[in-house]
């Protein structure tokens, strides 16, 4: 193989890649924040005593989890406008990713809730808290810390999924990588650098989150 490596084009476009990476991180952070809210509601829904509520939550979670994310992205961006819901690219992508994250997080939260000892709620009742106060002050904080590792994993896969924003021309890292690839023909360099950025950033996020987990962990 005689291929002359030349990374100069990549270096010249460093700002684009950085911009794209920044946008990807932004998309992932916003989506996981919204997704946590959706996921909590869905998790409580799945564990609810009301049949309809349970049914809706279960249907949402299994429908989203079994549908490819690319189909969801395209559906939200190209098909929803027909129902009068027209969003710009970035909002549409955030909308999709949040709904997507919500379904996965719902499952995480549900198992977190199930694993909590029953006594937690009863102790809350015993000191005269309302059901809502018990949820917000005891159940959710404890559960949250317990599921933090799965939450981290979900965030990392969500960040990787932001690469699909390129499919609807949202200018993220993958979008710019393709652009540089097409314009410069430095094919190998482009994709080497792009995937290395993803790998390194994922690794950094993982170690950062692990430190956070340790800080927040309940001592035992």
């Amino acid at each position, binding site marked *: 193989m005689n291929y002359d490596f030349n990374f100069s084009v990549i270096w010249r476009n460093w700002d684009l890649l950085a911009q794209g990476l920044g946008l990807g991180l932004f998309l992932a952070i916003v989506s996981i924040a919204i997704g946590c809210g959706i996921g909590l509601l869905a998790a409580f829904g799945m564990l609810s005593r009301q049949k309809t509520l349970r049914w809706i939550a279960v249907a949402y979670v299994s429908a989203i989890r079994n549908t*490819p994310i690319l189909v969801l992205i395209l*559906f939200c961006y190209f098909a929803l406008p027909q129902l009068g819901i027209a969003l710009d690219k970035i909002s549409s992508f955030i909308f999709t990713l949040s709904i997507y994250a919500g379904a996965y997080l719902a499952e995480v939260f549900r198992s977190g809730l199930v694993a909590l000892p029953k006594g937690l709620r009863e102790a809350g009742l015993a000191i005269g808290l309302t059901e809502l106060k018990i949820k917000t002050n005891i159940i959710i904080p404890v559960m949250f810390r317990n599921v933090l590792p799965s939450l981290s994993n979900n965030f990392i896969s969500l960040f990787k999924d932001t690469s699909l924003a390129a499919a609807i021309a949202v200018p993220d890292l993958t979008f710019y990588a393709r652009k540089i690839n097409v314009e410069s023909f430095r*094919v*190998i360099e482009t*994709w080497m650098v792009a995937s290395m950025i*993803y*790998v390194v950033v994922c690794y950094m996020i993982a170690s950062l989150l692990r430190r956070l987990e340790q800080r927040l962990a309940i001592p035992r």
Partner: protein
Amino acid sequence: MNFSLFLAELWNARMSLINGLGNTVLISVVSVLLGSILGVFIGLVMTYGGWFTRFSVRLYIDFLRGTPVFVLILACFYILSVVGFDLSAFQAGVLALTLFCSSHVGEIVRGALIAIPKGQTEAAKSIGLTFGQTFIYVLLPQALRQILPTWVNTATEIVKASTLLSIIGVVELLLATQQVISRTYLSLEFYFFAGFVYFLLNFVIEQAGRAVERRISVP
């Protein structure tokens, strides 16, 4: 929304959609099979290999798991043609999914093997089994039972990831659907339809997995 129009167009497009579905299934089956074979090998090396092979394989896995599948597909598609491997988009895509699958399966297999108590190996040795026999009759059957649920999950991941091949021009179910949409402008109906088919596909895989699990479970 015009339901009868949708049904008529669906009927018109049936052959191309079925073709697309066929490709989706083919891509998934080949990637999962090849990826699993490679993955079992990787899992074995990670469990029983020397430190250097373990280290190299670790790098391989971490690299594949840190890269988005989409980037992996684009990289395989663009890079391989440059370095002189003349792969079709289909082949490049399958290669990417195979690598992706192998990293997952490798991790799963290793996890299952190290979770088996050491006493199992020792008991097998003490009745005179060789390492190969111990692996085949004692370790593998136990590992397989533990692997199955996660492995099924990986298979559904691959089915979902196969949609990404549409972006490099492989006419699988999603691209076939998009082609129909560009002709009929029924994006709402057909995207929904495609989503539903994927849902069914994964549902069937999951149910089949559960059935096998029940079948081979030991009390």
